[in-house]
């Protein structure tokens, strides 16, 4: 079976990270979301993919190319103007033969277990269109799926207005027949409507996914995703091509990639990840659930806690970065402090796309886009987002609303 992977959308709610990359190229525990999905798909026996790409597509295409390095076949379909999921999928209509089924995968989901194997199993046991569904605490964000006693979906309510619903939602993995493209056509390329039509005829069965699942919607979801991947780690891995110079303390499941150099006096508390060729200076403390991407430089005496660094970034000496996400090619000056809680012990608010949103986290630091330069001795307030390419001089006081 062929998989069609939707990787074209811009995902503005994930700013500051998606201005400069497509959502599926977000890094979690040293790997792109799309890499994770492709590995799982491969394990499920699916090796032919149609990737629908648009926004910042060269990032995807130059990394995966035709898939040979990953042992899969990838071809690309360009979606020039983003017009939603339905329109993106419609671009792939000619790649599915009549009468065939295909796997439809949203490029921005992250699961630890193999959701694809389970969905395919369900498909093979019912030989009908299947949608993977999962439970989330709130239906408001995702919609509510209604089932009958045969596990067929009877109704999909997108973003229900009435409270009091908390239930199964679509998990972004489907097995659909080729005729879905005709349905999509009838629905004017509107995915919601097309699914509603599919539910009526020929029907859509559900496959319940109970393992961890996350759909990247907000910047803090990156931290949650990182947590999901690292949580079950139970063994340390230190590459024989890494150098631990002198007194380096490794506690718990710590992953140290090839080419890493860690100077003496540093402590790494797992689960955590240090990517290829990263340099960790003396007396650095890397705490749980930290993922440092490739080619980073961590200066003397830095403390990192529960944060994700995509790669190619530098953190100057004596800084503290906690509960934060840092893009690529970021330069953080020495003595920079992220504040990761507010004094009132309330949940942290984040300004996303001009709107202040409640993250639901009591501890949350900063979200720093690609190519940001931060001068020395800065204090970054909890929930701060810094747009890609911004420049902060030394000793600046920054307020949450972006003013200085």
């Amino acid at each position: 079976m062929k998989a069609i992977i939707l990787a074209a959308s811009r995902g503005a709610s994930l700013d500051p990270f998606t201005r400069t990359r497509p959502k599926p190229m977000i890094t979690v525990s040293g790997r792109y979301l799309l890499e994770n999905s492709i590995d799982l798909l491969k394990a499920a026996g699916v090796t032919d993919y149609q990737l629908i790409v648009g926004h910042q597509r060269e990032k995807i295409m130059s990394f995966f190319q035709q898939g040979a390095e990953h042992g899969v076949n990838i071809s690309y379909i360009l979606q020039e103007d983003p017009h939603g999921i339905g329109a993106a999928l419609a671009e792939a209509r000619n790649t599915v033969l009549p009468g065939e089924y295909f796997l439809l995968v949203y490029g921005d989901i992250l699961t630890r277990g193999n959701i694809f194997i389970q969905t395919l199993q369900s498909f093979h046991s019912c030989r009908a269109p299947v949608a993977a569904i999962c439970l989330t605490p709130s239906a408001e964000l995702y919609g509510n799926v209604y089932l009958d006693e045969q596990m067929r979906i009877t109704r999909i309510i997108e973003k229900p207005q009435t409270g009091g619903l908390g239930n199964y939602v679509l998990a972004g993995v489907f097995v659909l027949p080729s005729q879905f493209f005709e349905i999509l056509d009838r629905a004017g390329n509107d995915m919601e409507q097309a699914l509603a039509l599919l539910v009526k005829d020929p029907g859509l069965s559900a496959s319940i996914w109970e393992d961890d699942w996350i759909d990247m919607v907000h910047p803090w979801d990156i931290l949650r995703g990182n947590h999901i991947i690292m949580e079950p780690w139970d063994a340390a891995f230190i590459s024989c091509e890494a150098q631990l110079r002198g007194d380096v303390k490794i506690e718990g499941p710590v992953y140290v990639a090839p080419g890493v150099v860690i100077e003496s006096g540093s402590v790494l508390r797992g689960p955590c990840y240090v990517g290829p060729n990263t340099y960790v200076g003396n007396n650095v403390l890397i705490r749980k659930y930290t993922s440092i991407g490739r080619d980073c430089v961590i200066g003397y005496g830095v403390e990192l806690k529960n944060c994700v660094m995509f790669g190619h970034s530098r953190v100057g000496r004596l800084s503290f970065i906690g509960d934060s996400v840092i893009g690529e090619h970021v330069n953080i000056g020495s003595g920079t402090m992220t504040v990761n809680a507010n004094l009132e012990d309330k949940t942290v608010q984040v300004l996303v796309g001009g709107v202040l949103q409640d993250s639901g986290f009591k501890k949350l630091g900063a979200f720093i886009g690609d190519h940001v330069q931060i001068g020395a001795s800065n204090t970054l307030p909890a929930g701060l987002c810094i747009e890609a390419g911004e420049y902060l001089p030394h000793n600046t006081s920054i307020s949450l609303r972006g003013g200085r």
Partner: protein
Amino acid sequence: MCGISGVAGLTDVSHILLASIKSLEYRGYDSCGMAILAQRRIEIRKDVGTVDEVIQRQRLYEVHGLLGIAHTRWATHGGVTSVNAHPHRSSDGAFAVVHNGIISNYRQLRGELEELGYVFSSETDSEVIPHLLHFYYRREQDVERALQCCLARLEGSYAFALLTTHEPERLYCAKLQSPLILGIGSNQNFIGSDFNAFIAYTRSAVVLDDHEYAVLTNDSYRIINALTSLPIRKNLMHIAWDPEQAQKGGYPHYMLKEVFEQPQTVSKVLAIERGELEKLARSLFDAGRAYFIGAGTTYYAALFGQYQLAELAQLFVPAISSDEFKFGALVDAETLVVAISQSGETYDTLEALRFAREHGAHTAAIVNVQGSSMTRLVDQVIMQGSGPEICVVSTKSALAQMLILTRLALVAGLLRGTLSAVQYDEREAELRLLPAVIQRILNEKSGFINTIARRHCHVNDWLYLGRGIYYAVAMESALKMKEVAYLHAEGMPGGFLKHGTLALIGEGVNTIVFTPPRAQRELHDLSLGSTEEVKARGGYLIGIHFDAEPSLYQDQVQLPEMPAILGPFAQLVVGQLLAYFAATALKRNVDKPRSLAKSVTVA
């Protein structure tokens, strides 16, 4: 639903066939059988019971051959008897057939064949197939053409496999509506109702579509469209997954599957004829003394029945746990003992029934598995028709039993005059809303229940409180929590709390309250009373209730308004889901909890 399988091999296939139907047992397990072709003779062995039992009794491993078919049955047409078990054969013994599905025009076909002098040995619809094959073979002198003619006559649904002495190297199979899959191995080919039939031997498969039939030998297969008689090319499919998973459809566990099947289970119970219940109700009236007995979950179902009969029919039928029956009950010739059992094989309950019979008592049973020991032992049986229940922990079956007892209480109330005909009709009409109510809870509340379960699954001690009939619901829900989540959960009547257990309330003990709907005023207010007692002592409270504006609980599952008679059933479903989600959050072995077995057949 039944499971069929077939193998054509180069070496002896009997052990493969047996392993194959064992893995299909989830499709049905009231009887099974197999047919092996060797030396141009078909040897058939079949009997009632689980695959393991039949293997032992009929010594199935002693039959050897290179070609065989097998079947595990869940009876639909015809009772559970050895004669009705598959395979069925033609009168000359030249054809043997295993069938899954329902031949809807079998009466007509059977009539025609009987006129032609064919003698049927079983009551099944399936037996028409071998006779039809025999009939057409005599005319066509060709097995494949006979099969084509036969298929043209069959209506309804089928997936069947057949062996014939006329072509001792070939297996034939055909499909319409029921599932059928071919497994393609090296030097052996397979037929199965699903992948589980052969996944231990090959992971290459071909799925048959409706109106197709296939001919297999050990090294070849071809698929033909029965309508056009043209051969069909199909792609081989590689199966990448774990075989155990494939049986569950879209569900991660059987338990959840069975919880989701409950609306269907309810409809089955509502279809049980009133006459059957009336018969049992009259036996209750005639008895000088009557008991409901059960063990574990079925004891709580019995308790549920006790409350319903008291309320609706003003009849006192105490519930006693089967294992204590001998010691705590008085039995004489005027006594009626009504046993409740999913499997019909529960040792303690069978013992209690035997004890009752020895003392001359009358016996009755509410049972799920047809043909089980209990159905043969008692004077009167009500089959609950809940379908196979695989998860060790009983969900849909327990709900069905409680509903049967409720209907029994309604009928008894009507006959005794404690309910007017109008009241009876009203209550029955309300029960008909139950499938939709359960479906709604599953669809709209699962998320909340999951969140509560995840938040609290690390709490080791739980109290489940209920009053009146909700006491039975609390007990049963607590048992679910113990069984699947391995958490200490204690059910008790709300009023019982202050007589001792209240001392436990405090940090680290969560209390779940099953609050009745406001319509049941007295029960509702009393329940709130015990809730206040817990709250006053700083206990953590989770309310499962129907109130519009509750303020007492820290966490809650708010259920939609519904007729009072449906309340306990709705809360039972919440209790099931709470236990299920707590168990999955704690990564327990949900379908096979430690130390537990599906039917407890030991003392």
